[in-house]
């Protein structure tokens, strides 16, 4: 089991790409510490790199040795660490993080206000209800079986009544407690004017219990307490599974957010800089954005000049110059100058405002799509209630009297009570989510699966989706390996994001001693009397060389290197394709999907990528409106579109598409709009999601048909008055088990895509390095 959890490992591997250039000792983290009522301080951290039992012991003992720490406890399943300090001691969170780094684990604190999660409370409530229902069904069944046996042998009437009253004593309070999720759901639905699946469940349980009490009071042979509590037990299993999946997804997403460090350096009125969670910033605050960092918030540049990569915002890869008064958006990557940014609320007329307006309209349209479960409910509820009403009428007309007529009508309600239907879809969703999770895909909602199944067109964004989010040295560029190594070691001293394309290639991971970075220009170092420079063409006197290289690589930027008096060399750096982008696009086309690319980037850059991938159908220089218009046009043609994108400019398109997918590096708004988020550098998840979606839908349909078939046999039986409690118990548990087992089949399907072989430990930059040197 140790180290076997692929998704967590991808998460770890991913998070470490985001290591900012910020030095830890410069950070003031007191905003992440919460003071408990007894005066002690407490903080929670997301920890990456925890693999096995030894890690746990090392972390807890290592931190226990720090002064002032009262306790440090690692939650292994959640990869979260809770640290508390002794009362009266100042909480030195920086020391804790440094200690963890010394031990070899990355860690970032959580926003303390995120700690109380509604998901966790809901899960606990459901588990408690499940425990009560489980206890009740066991004990009631024990008594019920005795009565069934007694009815065909020599049980006295007094004993039978006593056993029935005992069942009532257990079942009534248990159902009142364990049935609450359904009762509340039914009432909420009715208030909103809808009949949800909770309604027939609540009605069935209440009717059964009332009838059973009446039967018991009149000394009848049969009571149906066992049926009512068993129904609740099975349905609660479905709910607990569903909630567990939601919570796991959310927990991982939160860890990821913390490790991506959603914090900002706030500058107070005295000029002091303090790290605070992004959620704590208010409009009007000043934030410092250092070179190499991403903008944490939207705002206006107050001081400083720099260049920024806005590709996460607009899809445009060419750097944009920024000066005081310019508007910046969260997610833009600051290049070479420090900026002071004043936080603004989303003002009307801005880019973000426009994106949000488009998005809310698209989400509104999508919310009107009925998922399989609601369609089944719509069909099922009136049918069941009609069947019960018909039974009642039929028996009355046949002259059977009120008692027999009501008894049989309630029997119809119990037997149709959607045990199988209630499990048919959630069980499949849970199994599919587990399968996707194993491959590093986090599903946002279960009903997305059936939408993935309907897809026939895949629309890709270019920047950050088909290409990797960080720049790389252009493929096929041949140069002296010694020079490249020198350039790479120089790049280690730079915070410029473009330098990271080179620094990944460094064989020796130590920067040159005495290397200095001049902001906006480059890095300079003197080794053995030889001056070496890495930076902009002007800084290296390499304008001519740069022009020549740019003519060959139209979609690249250049970074130049000069050693001593030798001629300067210009290195083309661009956003490389994801390692398996070509294969994935080809495979999608082979499988009969129409593949389209919609990008906000300039025409020449998009054309180059489209040619390499073999995508004939592409458009460039699109605004968010254009993108959403294209998606809607495809929808009007009857196409079911899967949108894969990461930028803020893709967010409306993600919301408008039939289904959507985002890489984990996507802008927050986009991730929130996407149906699933995938980790890692591979593009394979696009195919995985489509394949799993199709199989999940097939199994859901099988389950629904099975539930329908079950009702076709069971309803006439109940309506005819042949339903004894024994048959009801067998039918209900039998059908639930069949649907659940069918759902589990999804995990053992032979056609399941294999987990990707590229282990998270082998991150692509290191793998790519030898190949380039050989060239």
């Amino acid at each position: 089991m140790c180290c076997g959890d692929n998704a967590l490992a991808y998460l770890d591997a991913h998070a470490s790409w985001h290591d900012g250039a910020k030095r830890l000792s410069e950070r003031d983290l007191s905003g992440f510490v919460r003071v408990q009522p007894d005066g002690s301080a407490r903080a929670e951290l997301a920890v990456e790199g925890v693999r096995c039992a030894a890690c746990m012991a090392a972390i807890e003992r290592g931190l226990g040795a720090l002064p002032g720490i009262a306790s440090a406890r690692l939650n292994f399943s959640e990869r979260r660490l809770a640290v508390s300090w002794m009362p009266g001691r100042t909480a030195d969170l920086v020391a804790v993080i440094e200690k963890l780094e010394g031990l070899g684990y990355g860690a970032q604190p959580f926003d303390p206000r995120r700690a109380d999660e509604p998901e966790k409370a809901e899960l606990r409530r459901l588990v408690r209800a499940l425990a009560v229902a489980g206890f009740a069904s066991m004990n009631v069944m024990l008594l019920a079986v005795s009565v069934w046996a007694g009815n065909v042998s020599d049980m006295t009437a007094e004993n039978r009544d006593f056993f029935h009253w005992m069942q009532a004593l257990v079942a009534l309070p248990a159902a009142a407690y364990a049935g609450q999720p359904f009762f509340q759901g039914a009432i909420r639905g009715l208030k909103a004017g809808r009949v949800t699946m909770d309604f027939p469940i609540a009605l069935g349980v209440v009717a059964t219990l009332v009838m059973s009490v009446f039967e018991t009071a009149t000394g009848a042979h049969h009571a149906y307490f066992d049926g009512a509590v068993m129904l609740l037990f099975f349905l609660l299993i479905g709910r607990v599974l569903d909630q567990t999946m939601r919570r796991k997804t959310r927990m991982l997403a939160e860890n990821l957010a913390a490790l991506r460090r959603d914090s900002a350096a706030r500058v107070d009125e005295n000029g002091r800089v303090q790290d605070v969670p992004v959620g704590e910033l208010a409009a009007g605050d000043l934030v410092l954005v250092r070179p190499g960092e991403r903008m944490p918030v939207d705002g206006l540049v107050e001081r400083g000049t720099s260049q920024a990569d806005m590709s996460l915002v607009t899809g445009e890869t060419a750097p944009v110059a920024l000066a005081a008064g310019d508007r910046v958006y969260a997610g833009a990557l600051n290049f070479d100058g420090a900026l002071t940014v004043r936080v603004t609320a989303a003002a009307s007329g801005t880019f973000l405002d426009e994106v949000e307006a488009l998005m809310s309209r698209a989400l509104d349209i999508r919310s009107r799509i009925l998922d399989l479960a609601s369609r089944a409910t719509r069909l099922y509820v009136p049918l069941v209630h009609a069947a019960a009403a018909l039974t009642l009428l039929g028996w009355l007309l046949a002259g059977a009297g009120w008692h027999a007529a009501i008894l049989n009508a309630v029997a119809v309600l119990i037997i149709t009570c959607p045990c199988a239907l209630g499990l048919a879809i959630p069980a499949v969703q849970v199994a599919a989510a587990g399968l996707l999770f194993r491959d590093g895909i986090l599903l946002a909602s279960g009903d997305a699966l059936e939408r993935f199944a309907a897809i026939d067109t895949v629309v890709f964004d270019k920047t950050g989706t088909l290409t990797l989010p960080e720049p790389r040295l252009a493929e096929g560029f041949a140069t002296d390996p010694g020079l490249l190594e020198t350039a790479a070691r120089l790049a280690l001293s730079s915070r410029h994001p473009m330098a990271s394309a080179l620094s990944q290639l460094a064989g020796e991971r130590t920067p040159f001693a005495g290397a200095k970075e001049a902001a906006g220009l480059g890095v300079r170092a003197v080794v053995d009397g030889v001056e070496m420079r890495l930076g902009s063409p002007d800084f290296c006197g390499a304008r001519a060389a740069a022009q020549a290289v740019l003519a060959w690589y139209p979609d690249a930027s250049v970074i130049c290197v000069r050693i001593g008096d030798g001629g300067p060399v210009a290195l083309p750096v661009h956003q490389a394709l994801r390692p398996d982008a070509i294969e994935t696009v080809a495979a999608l086309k082979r499988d009969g999907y129409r593949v389209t690319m919609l990008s906000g980037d300039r025409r020449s850059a998009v054309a180059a990528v489209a040619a390499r991938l073999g995508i004939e159908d592409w458009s460039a220089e699109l605004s968010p409106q254009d993108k959403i218009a294209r998606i809607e046009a495809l929808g009007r043609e009857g196409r079911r579109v899967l949108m894969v994108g990461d930028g803020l400019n893709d967010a409306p398109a993600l919301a408008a598409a039939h289904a959507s997918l985002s890489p984990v590096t996507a802008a927050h708004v986009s991730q929130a709009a996407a149906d699933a988020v995938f980790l890692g550098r591979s593009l394979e998840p696009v195919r995985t999601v489509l394949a799993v979606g199709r199989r999940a839908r097939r199994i859901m349909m099988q389950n629904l048909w099975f539930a329908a078939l079950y009702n076709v046999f069971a309803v006439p039986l109940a309506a005819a008055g042949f339903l004894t409690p024994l048959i009801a118990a067998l039918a209900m548990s039998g059908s639930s088990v069949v649907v659940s087992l069918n759902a589990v089949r999804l995990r053992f399907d032979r056609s399941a895509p294999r987990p990707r072989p590229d282990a998270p430990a082998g991150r692509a930059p290191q793998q790519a390095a030898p190949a380039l040197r050989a060239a």
Partner: protein
Amino acid sequence: MDVLVFMIPIATGLGLVGLCAFLWALRSGQYDDIEGAEYRVLQDD
């Protein structure tokens, strides 16, 4: 069979004790870190 009047409630009561024990365990966080617990049991400290 008068003894049933005592035996059945006692049996149900025992089941109830088990339920309370589970709810207590849930409340006191015994199920919060199931993966960690399987390793912690092996630590000697």
